[in-house]
């Protein structure tokens, strides 16, 4: 285990790139908010906790993908195991060009191409997801297939911390380390909240990093809203000679960027309406999201 903050500066990314990604993250949060407010539904707070993580993957040059050929054989796979995070993935897929941004206006609408949870046939999406504890195992299967075929792609997967309550997560955790899936990189969006309570109040996961270490994973703890730390954690991952899968535990804030939604239990799976929607929009566009 190492802590992202402790790595030396040569692993950091340029200020220009960080600024670009921060602007992009803010733009994506706006898209999420617009999309969910219009639909009157969607997991806004779950999307905002992992915004920087996904922007880093898709806009920061980490994932290899081809918008003209979403199923290209040597693409990296991104498996959204926390399927409620589709509210962030769809705007990102649209933004990088997998489908027109206008499609976001059809979120949860009649004849629209997607709803609240992830759907496998959306261009750029890999799986159907919404029931927790599934995508992680699929990601492991894809990573194993790459090993079997001697293919070089990486598989990234994003879990919720509440999702780590699922027993199937730990079945996969054992499997992945047993098979030395060093082409599998998992990120836990550690936003400390599940649907109805704080994770530590319902069933404690702490010490989460020690759990993953004991299951045979390399573990990195980072601030999940810091692009610098995200890039430190992923520095040189393609050439790294690790013989274990990598777990990045990203400390995040559920609802990040909207003061009245941050760390609030009752905002799970809900989109703001009326004055609250206006207030949220105002905060996103005046206060930034640092």
């Amino acid at each position, binding site marked *: 285990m190492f802590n992202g903050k402790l790595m030396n500066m040569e692993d950091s990314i340029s200020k220009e790139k960080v600024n670009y990604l921060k602007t992009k993250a803010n733009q994506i949060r706006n898209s999420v908010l617009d999309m969910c407010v219009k639909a009157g539904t969607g997991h806004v707070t779950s999307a905002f906790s992992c915004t920087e993580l996904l922007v880093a993957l898709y806009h920061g040059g980490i994932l290899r993908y081809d918008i003209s050929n979403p199923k290209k054989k040597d693409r990296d796979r991104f498996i959204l195991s926390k399927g409620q995070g589709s509210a962030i993935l769809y705007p990102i897929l649209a933004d990088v060009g997998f489908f027109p941004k206008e499609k976001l206006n059809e979120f949860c609408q009649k004849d629209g191409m997607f709803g609240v949870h992830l759907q496998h046939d959306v261009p750029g999406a890999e799986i*159907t997801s919404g029931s927790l504890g599934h995508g992680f*195992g*699929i990601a492991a299967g894809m990573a*194993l297939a790459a090993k079997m075929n001697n293919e070089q792609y990486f598989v990234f997967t994003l879990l919720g911390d509440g999702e780590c309550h699922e027993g199937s997560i730990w079945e996969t955790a054992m499997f992945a380390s047993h098979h030395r899936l060093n082409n599998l990189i998992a990120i836990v969006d550690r936003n400390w909240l599940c649907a109805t309570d704080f994770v530590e109040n319902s069933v404690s996961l702490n010490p989460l990093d020690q759990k993953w270490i004991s299951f045979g994973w390399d573990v990195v703890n980072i601030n999940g809203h810091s692009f610098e730390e995200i890039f430190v954690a992923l520095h040189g991952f393609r050439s790294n000679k690790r013989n274990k899968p990598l777990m990045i535990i990203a400390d995040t804030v559920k609802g990040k960027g909207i003061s009245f939604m941050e760390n609030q239990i009752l905002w799970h799976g809900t989109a703001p309406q009326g004055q609250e929607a206006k207030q949220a929009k105002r905060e996103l566009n005046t206060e930034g999201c640092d």
Partner: protein
Amino acid sequence: MLTQRDAFFDKLYKIAKNDRDVILICADMGAPSLDKFRRDLGSQFINIGIAEQNMITVASGLALSGKKVFTYAIMPFVTLRCYEQIKVDMCAMDIPVTLIGVGAGFSYDDSGPTHHATEDIAIMRVLPNITILNVTDNIMASACADIAYNYTTPLYVRLDRAPLPEIYRTSENFSNGISCLRSGKDVCIVATGNMVHNALEIADKLREHSIDAAVVDLYRLKPVNSESLLNYLKQSTMVVTLEEHLINGGLGSIVAEVIVDNDVNIPLRRLAIPDKYCYTYGGRDTIQKTIGLDTEEVGKRILKLFDKKKVKRLRKN
């Protein structure tokens, strides 16, 4: 004596030897015929441990990456234990993973209800996109390996654990999903799996009572070949379904649905496991006798239907 799983895995071994993309995952489950697969094709064999949920998700990930994946466990564990994974990760995405379950009905007789596969037909057949094959003999089991290899959508193959006699010829084409093994005008016994063998025996006994019984093997339980089934049903005066599965949702329900949905007026009796768990020991025959599904009792139950007044009433209603 060779069992259905030996026949299936022997054929799968031959297929896998010529195609490195064929992957077999077992959940800590063995079989004599698996030993050579594990020995000779080790890179295509995964013992995933006693972790059936992970077995299905990993299988789906492999299949999404172009592998032809077979998962294998005792029947309740490869269906009920990981049901939601089958729904979401196989059926909702329509992924070609094959589930191989061993232990149909009371195959694992003295192991008790945890190991009895008596609910799986009911729960599996409601899943869109899946095909269910319930194997009758070793020849069909071997053919099912070929069918599964060429399948492009989710598939569930039910295998009996016990050695059962061979009914079919090796040249049999199993694409129809249904087979009329014996014609008869008085009663059509529609059976599946091991109960097809019982049905043939029962038909012989009924003949001694001058009752002409047809025996139909409905081995593809989903999608049902309704046209052929109706054609066979209409040739008899009444229909009896016979299965080693709970009464709710299994073969009897399937046949009832086909009859109702097609406005056919024919009496139907469903002979199946009563709606309760079975803690009877002493072997499969003892269990069948205890719940009235042994050939003698089933024969008597069918004979009782031939009280003329009763038949008349059934037809009228």
